């Protein structure tokens, strides 16, 4: 009975979506806002990567909200998982290959992560992608040596300060220019590393925030006592 209702529901959903699909004109979007942004973004923001322009300038508050969502998820997960009991056994130490690999990968991932963050306004990539790689760099270390773990104090300080820096740049613009998160500083020449005003700074704050958030999330998840089969 329940399965029948479920089949009816999902069948109806699929049918509805297909009917709507036949009405829509995919492949020829109206491009109302999009075209306008494509036309003016280069001059207004000065970043070669228009996606980054939209992400950090035109829709900056969305990005802030999204950072907050990650933060809320990490905070809630911290509350749920709580503290690890002191006597609980931690995961076994990784083998030699894992440990050596982690040591080798750590600087490499760190460099790649920061490269992607700092070139976010020029090439594909940016704060999120780089931040995920930074988180991976630290998490690989945790995988290699679970007993050592990550210092939660340091992570929470970094995540707090990075988030505060993002808002701080926004408030700075609010008090100087009268608008929250308005792009400031010299736009430079399109395509240079130091260009697009405050965008690289925002990107850096974003990357650090995302990285520390995800690293904290994953370590607190892997810190909880395992239920061994």
């Amino acid at each position, binding site marked *: 009975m329940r399965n029948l209702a479920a*089949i009816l529901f999902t069948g109806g*959903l699929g049918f509805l979506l297909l009917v709507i699909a036949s009405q829509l004109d*995919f492949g020829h*979007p109206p491009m109302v806002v999009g075209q306008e942004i*494509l036309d003016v973004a280069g001059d207004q923001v000065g970043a070669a990567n228009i996606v980054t322009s939209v*992400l950090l300038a035109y829709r900056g508050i969305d990005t802030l909200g999204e950072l907050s969502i990650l933060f809320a998820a990490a905070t*809630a*997960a911290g509350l749920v998982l709580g503290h690890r009991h002191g006597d609980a056994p931690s995961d076994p130490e990784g083998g030699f290959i894992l440990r050596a690999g982690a040591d080798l990968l750590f600087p490499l991932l760190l460099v790649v992560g920061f490269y992607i963050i700092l070139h976010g306004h020029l090439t594909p990539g940016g704060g999120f992608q780089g931040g995920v790689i930074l988180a991976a760099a630290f998490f690989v270390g945790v995988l290699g040596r679970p007993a050592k773990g990550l210092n939660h104090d340091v992570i929470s300080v970094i995540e707090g300060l990075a988030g505060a820096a993002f808002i701080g740049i926004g408030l700075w613009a609010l008090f100087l220019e009268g608008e929250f998160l308005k792009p400031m500083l010299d736009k430079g020449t399109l395509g240079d590393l130091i260009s697009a005003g405050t965008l690289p700074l925002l990107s850096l704050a974003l990357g650090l925030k995302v990285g520390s958030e995800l690293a904290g999330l994953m370590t607190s998840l892997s810190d909880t006592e395992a239920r061994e089969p």
Partner: protein
Amino acid sequence: MIDLNFVTVLYVGAIGLLVIGAVGLVMCNNVFRMVLALVLAEAGVNLLLILAGYRGDAAAPILGFGPEGAQMVDPVPQVLVLTAIVIGVGVQALAVAVLVRVFHAYGTLDMRELKAHFEFELAAEKTTEPPRSTEEPAGGRPLSPVPPRPHPGEARS
């Protein structure tokens, strides 16, 4: 040669993912699999959003990459999807964290069993005495003080 329409193929893929995700969410009883189904549905809707900004003859929205003066695809849906992906993984991680705790407490991931545990513990919490077994059970499962045995035959789609 078969006439393949690129956009239609992708559209069918997006709808397919959405519907498969919805099927999983509605019909799976294993909570962990429901989380996986959620991942599928999210991937589907992300694809749908990107398709909303796609046009066939255009390039990626990065200045100075494509030929001069070339048309570019709509950047706005791409930003929306970037946002949606990160939101999705945050929610997913939180879900896994709560699941780990639930599993530690009850030793099961079956939604029906969890629901039965829920009703039973809540009734025990509200009144000092456990509910009488003559009381009509919710969902056809007798509310016995002993938590119900795991149901034989994991119901799958």
